[in-house]
């Protein structure tokens, strides 16, 4: 009772409104400033859309957008191909390795990207020797960067189904291990796979450390370079990236919500199985 009284009191409501207003100002002003800054005429009045047109007209910016999108695609595919079968396999056949795999996947949180860049030059000398000096080789480093986040989504999805029972059922009906992984387990953890993919795309589109220190022209790196000569265009591109990332992550919350609804529906049957 007293809780409701405090929550509803006028003083609390005022504090709450003022605080929310302050937060809104702090977070919205820089975003609105970006919109304003990228559309105003330098040294004059009125509006211009030139910085926004540069996003598709400037050849360097345009090619960097293509590079970043390709990197996002390649990283997502390689990450899923490498991680998903491994994590399913660990649950099914080598549970003893689960601690090791978890430790390795979460290690990039403790070893910052900057540290990996400092130590990776020898590895990248070999990579560019074998595959050429393409910015797309950044994929290999990016897979490591997205690993902790991808691991968490996949781990949560795998935890919400009974992998072993599913696999035993499929095996007893004559399925091979490939069928078990691709056709039985994978469809059941699909929401986890999509959310891992979304996070990977978002992270790759924003990554700066590797690209700038290894000198590969990805979108964030080119935005940074342009900032020295053409700040309005850089600001427009930054805002565009932020909006794109927001759309991706909002899409992700919808995927996540479907996932939760399904797992709630699954719960009784899961209880019956175990």
């Amino acid at each position, binding site marked *: *009772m*007293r*809780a409701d009284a*405090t*929550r509803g009191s006028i003083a609390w409501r005022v504090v709450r409104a003022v*605080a929310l207003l302050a*937060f809104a100002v702090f*977070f919205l*002003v*820089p*975003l609105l*400033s*970006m919109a*304003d*800054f990228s559309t105003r005429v330098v040294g004059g009045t009125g509006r211009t859309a030139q910085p926004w047109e540069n996003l598709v007209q400037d050849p360097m910016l345009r090619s960097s957008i293509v590079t970043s999108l390709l990197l996002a695609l390649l990283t997502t595919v390689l990450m899923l191909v*490498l*991680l998903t079968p*491994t994590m399913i*396999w660990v649950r099914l*056949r*080598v549970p003893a*390795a689960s601690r090791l*795999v978890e430790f*390795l996947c979460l290690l*990039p*949180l403790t*070893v*910052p*990207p*900057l*540290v*990996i860049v*400092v*130590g*990776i030059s*020898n590895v990248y000398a070999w990579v560019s020797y074998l595959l050429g000096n393409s910015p797309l080789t950044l994929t290999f480093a990016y*897979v*490591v960067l997205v690993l902790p986040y991808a691991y968490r989504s996949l781990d949560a999805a795998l935890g919400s189904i009974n992998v072993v029972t599913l696999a035993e059922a499929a095996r007893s009906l004559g399925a091979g291990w490939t069928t078990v992984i691709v056709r039985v387990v994978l469809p059941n953890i699909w929401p986890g796979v999509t959310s891992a993919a979304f996070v990977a795309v*978002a*992270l790759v589109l*924003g*990554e*700066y*450390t590797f690209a*700038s*220190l290894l000198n590969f022209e990805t979108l*964030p790196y080119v*935005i*940074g370079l342009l*900032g020295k000569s053409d*700040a309005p265009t850089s*600001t427009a591109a*930054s*805002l565009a*990236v*932020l909006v794109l*990332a*927001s759309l991706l*992550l909002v899409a992700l*919350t919808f995927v996540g919500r479907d996932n939760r609804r399904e797992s709630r529906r699954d719960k009784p049957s899961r209880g019956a199985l175990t």
Partner: protein
Amino acid sequence: MARVSRLAPWAGLLPFLVYLLVFLLVPTVTVVVGAFQGGHGFSTENITGLFEATALHTLWNSLVLSVSSAVVGAVLGAFLAYLVVTRPPTSLFRRTVTAVSGVLAQFGGVPLAFAFIATLGFSGVLTEALRSSFGLDIFGSGWLFGLRGLILVYSYFQIPLMVIVFLPALEGVRPQWREAAVNLGASTWQYWTRVAGPLLLPAFLGATLLLFANAFAAYATAALLVTQGNPIVPLLIRAALTSEVVLGRQNFAFALAFEMIVVVGVVMTLYTLLLRRTSRWLR
């Protein structure tokens, strides 16, 4: 035979393990070994270089930046998370704050630097508006591009990160606990100091440590914002990697990176320990 069949499933992990060996463990080991290598084999000159005045001052700046942005982020973020959690989970407000926090927390980096240059830079929108309407100069001598500016800018992604990290802990606080406390005659103050406070404290401290590590390791925003000097460790690493200033000490970047591993490693270990304590009741 028995041993072979027991080890056979481990072969399925080989691609994953080899990949991480090449792209994660080899770079990390290179850094650690390189930190203790001079021109001719083993040497501690790079490590002793860390304790010279410039390097120590840079480390101090980094610690100040990380601690202050972590504390600001943790306190304000926890407060915002509390404002969020008192609304129903399906409310538009709560969904918006969570989604926006997700974007801002992960999307520091490049856009953030330009957001603040566009706002508070020399010809920034807010700077010009205040200059023309009130004659107020908030640009000053360019504080935005120094340590104080970094603290402000880092708060912009630390607060949302705190919301994301701390929200699950706040959601784990059951209304029944409060009802039980109130039934036993506890006041609001007693409930917060005796029940909710002690329960949330490990989660709060853990989240603060995570924020600290996050700020300490952040690179992109600072790299774009600070173009003169190298006030913090990540920027000193950039200088050691790219410029000629510290020539003759090629392995100094390794030593600085090693210092970073040590600081972040210690903090993340404490974080894991605190997280384990939180997860005991947070289910």
